[in-house]
């Protein structure tokens, strides 16, 4: 088995100790979250704090909207050959009151998704080069099987 390396540093935990999660920032001054993590300034115009705690964001959220990518995106996206279309979702995280995007795991099509559906964060392979898997966060439907039933 080859190496497993995050495709970007510090944006998510790999789930080696407890479940995987996105790593955001929480402002020490006003509690505002940000993803990816802020390190320099708070986005709240009424807050001048420059202190941030790195926190794990909610692992589950509800679909704000969704789509797919039927055509191969241009570089710097590293596409499989042959190209396999994937879905993208924007997910509302209730506790953080923000919406975050991400790909959906393989095998899910837009027909499996609805606004308001619950999804869960997983860590998955974005692309592989030589003997290394480059990892990214993806979203996995929680209720897709239920609707089909």
């Amino acid at each position, binding site marked *: 088995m080859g190496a497993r390396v995050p*495709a*970007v*540093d510090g944006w998510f935990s790999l789930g080696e100790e407890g479940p995987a999660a996105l790593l955001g920032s929480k*402002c020490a001054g*006003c*509690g*505002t*979250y*940000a*993803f*990816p993590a802020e390190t320099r300034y708070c*986005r*709240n*115009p*009424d*807050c001048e704090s420059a202190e941030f705690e790195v926190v794990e964001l909610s692992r589950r959220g509800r679909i*704000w*909207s*969704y*789509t*797919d*990518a*039927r*055509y191969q*995106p*241009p*570089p*710097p*996206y*590293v*596409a499989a050959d042959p190209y396999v279309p*994937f879905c*993208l979702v*924007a997910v*509302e995280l209730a506790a*953080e*009151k*923000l*919406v*975050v*995007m*991400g*790909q959906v795991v393989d095998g899910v099509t*837009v027909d499996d998704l*609805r*606004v*308001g559906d619950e999804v869960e964060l997983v860590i998955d392979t*974005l692309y592989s080069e030589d003997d290394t898997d480059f990892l*990214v966060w993806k979203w996995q439907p929680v209720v897709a099987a239920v609707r089909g039933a």
Partner: protein
Amino acid sequence: MPDDKRIAVLGAGMHPWGKWGRPFVEYGLAAARDALADAGLGWRDIQFVSGADTIRNGYPGFVAGATFAQALGWTGARVSSVYAACASGAAAIGSARAQILAGLCDVALVVGADTTPKGFFAPVGGGDRKDDPDWLRFHLMGATNPTYFALYARRRMDRFGATEEDFAQVKVKNARHGVANPYARYRGEVTVDEVLASPMVADPLRLLEICATSDGGAALVLTSMDFARRHAGGAEPQVTINAVSTVTPSFPNTVIEMPNFSTDSAVAFSGQWDAGAGFRPSITAAAYAEAGIGPEDLSLAEVYDLSAALELDWYEDIGLCGEGEAEKLLRDGVTSLGGRVPVNPSGGLSCFGEAIPAQAIAQVCESVWQLRGVAAGHQVEGARVAVTANQGLFGHGSSVLLTR
């Protein structure tokens, strides 16, 4: 309205939109000369040149104001070059307007032009740029521009019952509007069936519903009200710009936008969190407030239909109707030529494709011709008030309100 916020539009000029790959300066120069001729002024009358930058054409594009001034021949005119992504044209208009209203100049030339590569817009510049969200969204998510437009489109379907046919009807309407527009790149009618038979790009958006990338150029000659009256022997100028909105979003911006990975967090916001109240409605709201003119006064609107579905979002965002009512407006023909408030009588991005720094200027050119009553074949009868609306990457609002 008092003179202190109005400026006159004396000239408008465009180079047709297309895909030729020639130097962008050529398109801008042609548009500038047309605008000067339209105004009845010469290049030496221009005191201030305001260029809208392009970032895909090397250094001359980053200093577009000077590039166009050099192409017209150095005269010592003052110059500004601004970049605001899709809002660059409105930012250049805003810059010229501020100079005029401050009394620093009487006559300004605004120019924007672009030459675009084929295919999806990819991030500009090479190498690994792991601190640039625009690079990272392609690398980590494969999120092209159309996928963001598709998120908005799908949300309309699931929340408001919009249909694929509604989106196709927007395309059909705009294609019909553009047929008689000599500056449009695509000038042929299409049917709903043809739109729905075109390949899916980012579900639910199909190829014919997504704006292309184009070459093109647009220019305006803007002057103070006093100059315009002197130039016309005392007559009031025919068309004026009453407001320019270049607002940023207000925190928390809760709609996901290109090229971001997430929205702002609303936890520190004391009001009600609405993961849907976003930036776009605030753009024209600022223009309406500045002009003292509301959406009920509009004769027409030119909005940024990056996708056919996004045009429906704009109907609500510019105040033509309430949330979830845009499909009814479309189906009732309100926004078609002959309807109460035609939207994109030019044919919109649907017929033009996007020439980024020229596009917001082109919206104003179309508005000028509509207000003069000279938009042959696609004229909004009796047009008196026009608004343009557009949004640039990373939070650049863009709206211009014009009256006759």
